[in-house]
């Protein structure tokens, strides 16, 4: 089944691993969870020799162990989980892994947008069926959240803060009373949540203030803040892991040279340092410079080399892709990149081991010229 999908959800992709973990799991499981909390942690953070397992479970999410533990524990408690952080810090990926491990279904997702209505959270009606048969449970279209309630699963709400406050507040009763009433129906008009139901929401800390959560809703969520990964080693790990996955998806057989990966990581680290010392927004790139952004840059470069290049990833291509991805505003971003290229990359390329930096410098210059 994985082969037929562009991107398989985690429970499909890691189905075999989850089955195996479930078969050996003898720990206590809360509610209707498929795995015990320890196994959920093991699934997400990977196994070690000390765990004494027969096979190795790879790490799937990279970050501090305590974030994962706190998230799992929250889901086992009475409250919803709100993952908050900068864009590209892996919030949605963690949410997907958690729901896949806990209930084997990570697809009960509501995407929060300015156009999200209460119907998307509760239920709506199949109009033609209502006309034909009247309002009944049959003609009702339950939302993913309602489905999660009925089946005792984890419902996900992506980008909670993008939807308007009144829509957000529809979650309050779902999270505290744990039922949704359907006043249109005369009987069978309450959907009760089954044990195991919980909600994982994600929110973007850059959107703070757009649609702030009401304090009533805040109370019903435990907040887990996911920081931007700044540890170079784990960042390299993430980029490698995700790029390998993407290339597998595109069926591309191309190697990412370690020096280029280093260059990419170093450039991002430098750009972040520059952004941290900037005093106004005009001196900062619009991009959050997250790990996901790096993966995007690398993927872009890989695809470019695959289809328009000689199937080898080169520093020039990487530089072009970096400039292309990060230059969003003209002239502000271009000016920053120009300064960065001449102030940071150029000195690096003149050092002893600067050969790949030299090519990177040239590629970036050309890309900047094209865009300017």
């Amino acid at each position, binding site marked *: 089944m994985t082969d037929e999908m562009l991107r398989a959800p985690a429970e499909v992709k890691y189905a075999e691993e989850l089955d195996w973990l479930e078969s050996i799991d003898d720990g*206590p499981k809360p509610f209707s969870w498929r795995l015990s*909390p*320890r196994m959920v*942690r093991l699934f997400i953070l990977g196994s*070690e020799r*000390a765990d004494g397992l027969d096979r190795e479970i790879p790490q799937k999410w990279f970050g501090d*162990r*305590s974030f994962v*533990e*706190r998230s*799992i*524990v*929250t889901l*086992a*408690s*009475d*409250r919803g989980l709100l993952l*908050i952080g900068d864009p590209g810090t892996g919030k949605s990926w963690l949410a997907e892994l958690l729901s896949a491990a806990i209930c084997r279904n990570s697809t009960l997702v509501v995407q929060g947008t300015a156009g999200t209505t209460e119907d998307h959270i509760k239920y709506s009606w199949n109009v033609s069926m209502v006309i034909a048969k009247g309002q009944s449970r049959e003609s009702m279209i339950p939302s993913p959240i309602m489905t999660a309630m009925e089946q005792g699963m984890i419902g996900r709400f992506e980008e909670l803060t993008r939807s308007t406050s009144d829509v957000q507040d529809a979650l309050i009763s779902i999270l505290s009373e744990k039922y949704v009433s359907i006043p249109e129906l005369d009987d069978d008009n309450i959907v009760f949540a089954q044990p195991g139901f919980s909600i994982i929401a994600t*929110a973007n*800390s850059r959107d*703070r203030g757009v649609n702030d*959560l009401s*304090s009533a809703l*805040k*109370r019903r969520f*435990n*907040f*887990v*803040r996911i920081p931007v990964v700044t540890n170079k080693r784990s960042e390299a790990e993430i980029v490698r892991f995700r790029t390998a996955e993407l290339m597998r998806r595109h069926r591309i057989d191309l190697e990412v040279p370690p020096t280029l990966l280093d260059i990419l990581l170093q450039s991002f680290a430098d750009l972040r340092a520059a952004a941290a010392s900037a005093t106004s927004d005009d001196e900062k790139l619009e991009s959050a410079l997250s790990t996901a952004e790096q993966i995007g840059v690398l993927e872009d470069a890989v695809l470019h080399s695959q289809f328009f290049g000689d199937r080898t990833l080169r520093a020039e291509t990487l530089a072009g892709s970096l400039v292309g991805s990060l230059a969003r505003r003209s002239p502000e971003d271009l000016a920053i990149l120009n300064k960065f290229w001449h102030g940071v990359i150029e000195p690096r390329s003149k050092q002893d081991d600067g050969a790949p930096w030299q090519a990177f410098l040239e590629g970036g210059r050309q890309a900047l010229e094209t865009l300017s």
Partner: protein
Amino acid sequence: MTEITEALPGPFGALRSQLLDAAAAFAGAGEGAGGADPVSGILAGMVDDVDRALREELEIFPVCHHSPASALAMARRLREKRPAVIYLELCEDLRPLLDELRNCRLPVALQAFATELEDFPAEWSPLSVVAPVTEASAEYQAIAYALDTPGVELVLVDRSTDHVFQWEPRTPPEPEPAADGGEGAALHGDAVGIEIGDLRPRFAELEAHLLHHGKVRHWSEWWDQYVEQPLVGADHDTYRQVMVLIGSLFRRLRPERDARNDRDEDRERYMWTRMREHLAASGADPARCLYVCGAFHAASRVEQFGLRADAPYEITPRTATRWQYGLIPSSHSAIEAQFGLAPGSVSIAAATWSKALQGSGVTPYRLKGQEGAKPKAVRARRAPDPGGPVADRLSGFLSRPPAPNGLDEDELLGWCVDIVRLARRNGYLASTADAIAVYETSVLLAGLRGRGRPTPYDFQDAAVTCIEKDTVPGRRDVRRLCEILLGGDRVGQVGYESLPPLARDVLDRLEPLGLDLAKRTIQRALLDLDANPELRPCSDLLWVLRRLLPDNAVRPIMGSRRLGERPIQESWDLDLGRHQRSIVELGYEGVTIEQVLEHRLRRTVADPKATAAAALAAVEDAILYLGGGRIADDLGNRAVELLAAERTVDDAPDVLRRIRRLLAYYRTTRADLPKWCERFVTAGYAHYCTLLPTAFLDEDTGVRQVAAMLGFLFSMESLALSLGCDHSQLELAVRQSHPEAPARIALLWAARSQLGLLPVAELRARYDELLANPLVVPSIPLYLSGFVQALEPVPSLAPVVVEVMSKAFARLPDPVLLPWLPKLITTLRDEAAELVPVLVREAGRMLPASLPAVDAWVPPWSARRPAAPASAPVPASARAVADLVAAHPAACDAVAGLLGHDAGWRPAAGGGGDDRVTGLLAAHGDTAHAVAALLGRA
């Protein structure tokens, strides 16, 4: 490290062979060959170390710092054994300070401090070593026992503080990142910390490995969970064996490089040598002695180890550096910051300590007379029999999982309720529901982390998860609140009796204020100096403290101290309780606060990099705080030397401001100027005259500096000339100046006009020429800034400056004028703030004050131009004066003769004059009579 001997038939033989088997099995399971040797070497070596330490004739008591388990085991052991001599791993020269501990509220730190260094690099100054002492520590138990039990001797055996630095590598110490831990964390300043029983892997990978597998974040947490808690209730033998084992493990696993560089082994040699010396000298019975040292040192393998060893070790003499000793207040957070412990860990240790005391029935030792709650008399349980041969307790300890010793139910519930209350008080919207959630989450987290019961760290994580939302509403976040809840940051205090003389003197002298200065809150002192003149010395002292202590220690709210001012009322915010360390450290510099200030002022001016301005500032301080006198003269003399030696004029504005202020002060307070002032003026006159032509040309010297030089020359000229200087020197210097930059040219014109070398009319004409020349117009603003600066040396030029500015505003094209305006304002504000009032006053005099008047207004300079006849009529208002002069022509003739004009007095022809004036004078004859009377004609 690979010493593998056959299993000894000792108590540990069985464990040893078991470990060797395990090592062999491990090597067999491993991939490469040859892995067995190091592993078995380490494992067997650890057991050997334990065996060796336990067999030693002198009882070794291994401890770990801030460990309640160590403290508890120590208290138990002391009650059982009642040793007569205690050897303690602490710098030997700190011994006298220990007696002072009873006057203090713990935690405090023992401090050794040196500012005048001998045989150390001068840039290391000041050297400072601190050794914090907390209540929940084994060393405090030992100290309290030894000091309060008659006949017990306490001997510190570690290297002296001098050796701490002797053994430092002579490379410049790298600046450490500033610890960010709030107010309490900075209590130790930048001192080097030493503590008893530093027990932490010296091998970063090992620590990372232990943390990872212990599923904990910080070393303190690992230690608490795997060593501290299991050992809290352990018996003496188990405690000792486990501690030595851990010490040995860390010792054997440290990288070779560290083993070479660190001085641990030297310290062990030092300590064993000292102990042997003491035993030999005192003849004490080794069986009645106890050696308290870090577990790391208990597993020592130096050849000097043991009383029977006779390997020599030469202790190097101390340097001639003079060390000062004292106690400073410390705090839990300061200890955590200094020794890299997890935030809150020392507070948790303190909480564990009090809990363990209640649970174990051990009565702790406490110094008599120490401030704080008295330990509850707990019913002492029957101690196990201390005698008997060493038995293997390790096997049992190592093979059992740690007994669950987390929080009990009630304690956790209490904390959950308290944290919610605390969070509410700090602005969080927390409720009972949160308390329930925190409780549930703590239990779940503990389960997930494989712990039977939640630890304080689990509780902290749970509280953050449940209460912390997207923003922190107040000053403290939930993590910090948890730390406060778990005992908070306890800050110690040094008692009055243990303070150095200076600090005691300060407190004594501030007593008339009637405040409790030991309090750790800000206290307001109101001084009505007119009503209560006896408070004047307090005010003087507060000003000196203000000068010497950090900013927040004493802060004047009302009142200031400036030259020539006498305060009537003052109000102060005093926070001396929280700045005890600063006062104690001042105590190392002198006996009274005035002495310290004098010393510092002298040091400032004696510095090779001192400037004349700094020396003048020191003179000012000496007058303000020390009443002037001899020290002010000494400092002033130094200022003269410094000025004469200066080759730049960067400080000229500062020098000018300060010397003016000092001269004004001396003129109002005494009949004559001090000698140094006269010398300063003459030296300055000559000095600035010499430097003037270069400064005018030099691009690196600012216009403001040149203006200040001219200001000095012009305003001090009369004094300088009266002291023997020559005016022609200045005139020549101005003639030699040929600036090129517009601003300086303007300044030079002003100077020349002041000297009479350039009439004002010509100056105006030159300026008008500039304005008329379109090529020069863009640089007009630069000329104007020169003119503005010229107000400083030539204040009489103010009308001209207003005139040239008004002309500029009127005539300059907008593209030149508008960009310049903001710059004019910033320049005026930054560089010539004191000149602005002069300018504004002059402008207010010349320009119309109301809007309607503007239409009819004719600028005085354009009105003046047509009416400037060469023979202006004699100002008629001086008729009476004219009469007077006419009545005594001889005087005029004499003056004329002196001036070389011998035309003689001639009566005015015609005698016409203005009738109106004559009429006016006739009508008001009193005026003329008054003038005449003034002139001496009755």
